[in-house]
């Protein structure tokens, strides 16, 4: 058996979930113990509502991170989608409006991804531009102020966030979307291609993996997820605002990183994304329950990110040392094969 042989399924390459589930558990225990309202059904519902939005945005940036890229335009796209859907609702019922907007966004995302792949340009610099451009489009479409839904359509808004136990149609749709995208990523050829180009771009090129398809797909998914988030959030709140979702980008990136999505590409899965969003949402909900302001919440989230960096660093250092030990073993055995008299066999691990 070759030393260091490992399966290459994306799920086994994901960063460990257990410590992160533990962190989530600690956060919950801490807040349930110190706040009377935290463990209630209504709080759980509120956390899941927040998680629904953040989870979709984290999915959006996360999928592009799997492909080794980063889509910075998700916030602006969500704003545009929110405005478009609110306007569509004046003539079209809810489900077609959502589907239309999400499909249009996916088409835009695929185009953006194709351009990035074809030009072989850095997606960060490209999407900074599209981020600005889409934000401008949001202002143009909305006439520079929030677009309000008709009063008689407000029952549609309410229907999205009606309570179904601790869930709502909003959070259930998001969970379904995560399962769907997770299935595509983990079990289909297209999903494997995304991880391949993310995990090693030159290597995947050499191995014959198509480059443009997975990147276009990743950006199409990110656009669709961002649009869905924008649509659901805007419709449920009754208005689409051009200045909305400006800060969510960085929170989503933080959530992805805390959840264990690898920043350099090719590592992570839907559990990492969901966990990351859940950790941040639970944490922020608990903090605001303690009366902490937005900026203090930012400070605390930054602290969580720092913790994640440190944990990351320590485990990576340990993994490097383990790899070094194993490769030394490998070299010694190879030397043995060439000159058995000279090389001293070390204690052999089967």
């Amino acid at each position: 058996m070759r030393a260091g042989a490992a399966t290459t399924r994306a799920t086994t390459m994901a960063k460990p979930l257990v410590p992160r589930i533990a962190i989530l558990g600690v956060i919950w225990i801490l807040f349930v113990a110190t706040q009377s309202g935290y463990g209630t059904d209504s709080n759980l519902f509120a956390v899941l509502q927040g998680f629904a939005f953040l989870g979709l945005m984290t999915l959006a940036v996360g999928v592009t991170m799997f492909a080794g890229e980063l889509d910075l335009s998700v916030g602006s796209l969500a704003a545009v989608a929110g405005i478009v859907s609110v306007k569509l609702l004046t003539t079209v019922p809810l489900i077609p409006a959502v589907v239309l907007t999400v499909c249009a966004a996916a088409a835009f995302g695929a185009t953006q991804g194709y351009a990035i792949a074809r030009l072989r340009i850095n997606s960060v610099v490209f999407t900074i531009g599209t981020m600005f451009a889409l934000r401008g489009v949001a202002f143009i479409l909305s006439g520079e102020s929030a677009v309000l839904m008709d009063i008689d359509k407000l029952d549609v808004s309410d229907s999205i966030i009606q309570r179904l136990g601790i869930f709502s149609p909003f959070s259930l749709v998001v969970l379904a979307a995560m399962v769907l995208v997770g299935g595509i990523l983990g079990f289909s050829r297209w999903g494997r291609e995304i991880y391949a180009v993310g995990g090693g771009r030159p290597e995947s090129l050499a191995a014959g993996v198509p480059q443009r398809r997975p990147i276009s797909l990743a950006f199409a998914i990110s656009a669709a997820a961002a649009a869905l988030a924008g649509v659901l959030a805007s419709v449920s709140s009754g208005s689409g605002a051009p200045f909305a979702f400006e800060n969510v980008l960085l929170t989503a990136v933080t959530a992805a990183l805390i959840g264990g999505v690898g920043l350099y590409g090719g590592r992570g899965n839907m559990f990492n994304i969901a966990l990351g969003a859940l950790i941040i949402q639970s944490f922020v909900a608990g903090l605001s329950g303690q009366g902490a302001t937005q900026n203090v919440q930012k400070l605390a989230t930054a602290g969580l990110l720092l913790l994640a960096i440190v944990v990351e660093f320590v485990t990576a250092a340990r993994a490097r040392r383990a790899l070094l030990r194993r490769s030394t073993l490998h070299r010694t055995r190879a030397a043995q094969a060439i000159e058995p008299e000279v090389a001293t066999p070390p204690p052999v691990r089967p």
Partner: protein
Amino acid sequence: MSTALDPGAIEPESLRSSLRGSISWAAVSTVAALGVLIAVAAVTTPAFATDDNARAVVAAAALTGIAAAGLTFITLAGHFVSLSTTATAAAGGVALAMLMRSGWSAGLALVATLGLAVLAGAVQGIVVAKGANPIIVTLAAAGGLQGLTQVVSDGKEVRTGSTALSWLGDPRPLGLTMATYVLLLIVVVSTVYLRRHRMGLAVSLLGENRKSAVATGLPALAITITVFAIASLCASLVGVLSVASFNRATVDQFGGLTFDAIAAVLVGGTAIAGGNGSPLRTAAGAVFIATLMNFMLLRGWSYGTRLAVEGVVVVVAVTAYHVARQGRR
């Protein structure tokens, strides 16, 4: 493994092109584009070609330009971008205002604020040099700085309670703001430093090809700390200059500064992969964007249209520079 978030691992361009710097075709094309824009604007829009308007454009470009010039150092060294620009600027402004309000003399408060900024930058630089990704580090630093600033200022506006900084905020030599001269000074000093000083040259070399630079013994740690400290210093200068002009500061200032600065760096043509570019080009990029926005404003275009055009310009600029660089290999 080369990815969008680790440009240091991307293949380097030719060393010759990066060392020729501001005399290269690319810098010429940036300035030429600016010239064309100014010419078109002057011909089509009478209100554009006035002294007052020119001063307004330059004033608008100056603050972003200062932050972007500092950011250029990080990009040149191959450490991509900093996402903590806004937070550092706001923190700098609030720190200065609070110190002066507590009775510190203007000079001492200034030195202390800039010193704190250098420290904040150095800390980020150390963590990045140890192997952490600059996006994560600066993201965390931004959150940390913003939260700290919020806590310290209690979320309220901080007034300096004195006019001791009026020498920095009020004068208008030749009708230009002091910020403009600060930007000019930074650009001149940076250009000399990056082209002549041993450490400055090392910055570009580190960005050009990190592995070779480290292998040949360049002090990667010192370089990284330096570039992050410089970027942090420049960002805090934005806050300082704002306080000098308005004598007040809040934690929520400079909201768009992070991405505006990055846009200026990109439009100026500094390569995101590192090693190629200069603060001069970044300043030109900042002026280009400010000129464009001013031109559109004078023509009565709506805010949304102006923003959309700015975005398209960034996309076109980065694509053009990218394609041109590919072609030169």
